[in-house]
């Protein structure tokens, strides 16, 4: 069992932010597709 160390917390926060940014980027991509004429 791994521990809730500061490094794990920092990496955990990073991966969560990456997930959130991936959703935002996907939204931007769909917006881009629908803005093409």
């Amino acid at each position, binding site marked *: *069992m*791994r*521990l*809730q*160390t500061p490094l*794990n*917390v920092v*990496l*955990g*926060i990073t*991966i*969560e*932010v990456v*997930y*959130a*940014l*991936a*959703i*935002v980027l*996907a*939204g*931007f991509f*769909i*917006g*881009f*597709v*629908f*803005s093409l004429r």
Partner: protein
Amino acid sequence: MILRTRLEDFKNIGYYLGRIMIGLALVMLVPVVLGLAVQETNPALDFIISLEITLLFGLILMKLCYTEKDLNWMQGMIVVSLSWVVAMLLGAIPLYLSGHWKSYLDACFDAMSGFATTGLTLVQDLDHLSLSHNLWRHLIMFMGGQGIVIVALSFFVKGASGAFKMYVGEARDEKILPNVIDTSRFIWLVSVVYLVLGTLALGVVGILNGMQPFSAFFHGACVFMAAFDTGGFAPQSQNILYYHSLAYEIVTMVIMVLGALNFKLHYHIWMGHRKEIWRNIETRAFFITVISTFFLTALGLRLCGTYPEVGVIFRKGFYQLISGHTGTGFMTIYARQFINQWGDLALASVICAMALGGAVCSTTGAIKMLRIGIVFKAMTEDIKRIVMPERAMVVERFHHIKEVFLTDKSARAALMITLAYLGLYGLGALVGTYCGYPFLQSLFESTSAAANVGLSCGITQVGMPALLKLTYIFQMWAGRLEFMSIFALAGFFVAAVKGK
């Protein structure tokens, strides 16, 4: 046979309710301190009066109902459902005293909207509201997001063995750690760590946009609390449109998504199980539903020709969509633009997104991703049973922290809550239509209230009928508590009248 309610039930409920209200009174100290620090004497007095009333109420209840007995399941559920109503009534006092709410009902509407992390508001002249009252609006949102009872469990109801019953009653059926008090504290740890990081990020963006440092960080803290707790209140009447900043919008979008994640998922990721974020049924379902609902929204907007450029479709279309899907309710457009510019397809897509919500055991409302995933898996299983040979064994499973086999019991529970939510959305839509609003607009506003979102198409105004205000208050309350504790309260009253 229904057993008659006993005096002991009332005493137990009253005692724990009193303890929770004392917790609420102590939180009122925060705006008092801010008010005195920034020389807002009258607002500070509003809070001192409210604090005294709340404290007195809690102490009298504790004295009258003193007991050392533990809560049973029904009592725990009733404590939760009553706590939210009483917190609304007492939390609305300082709002009403400020003079920015036309009636006490309007103040109660905003207090319930805050506690239930909805974000619909009836405040007047928000731009000139005192800092203390503004902070209180966001504090109640932060408390509601964590759960009023969790606030009490973490700090004021230490060692209560009936804690788990209240924890479950507050729509958090997932225990992160074996001890429910430790679970509550972990929820606070995540929120406070993100509070620091989020306020810093928003504060820096605010300063770079030209805001004064104090104002940038005050707005940053308020906006963070509303975004992470998927609430939707903002310190200015124009909501997030006030900042006119792409960076601010991106940071708030990230915070909203983080707030829509399951606290149990946060725990496992912070423990080092980082792959969980890509494997979990909730994060996968959330990704898929965001993409599909935005695809439909963008198609609807394209058909209307409303936002032809990529930047605009992203900042106006996607922002409202993600805000609705996470249950936040931040807006970068004016309410009536939904009706005048968006068209029915885009509007219907946003209604779907609002109805779905974020993860279970998060701060969001609505049906939630785990249930959507389970219902989808149950449908897949049934289709496979029809298609495959009769003797074939069909077993569906999904990944939620660990591999879980789909059972009829879990599918039934997910479907029951899904149906209850759909009924609640429909109820508000019918009342709205009865009050004279078009059906689609009524459904939009009703879903927003019941799913604790806060996006508005313009129905929520000071002048709307009192019946609709009361309906939305009920929807926000029932939607936030996910029905069980509301049913328990109804059962309690039935037992008091008809019990033997």
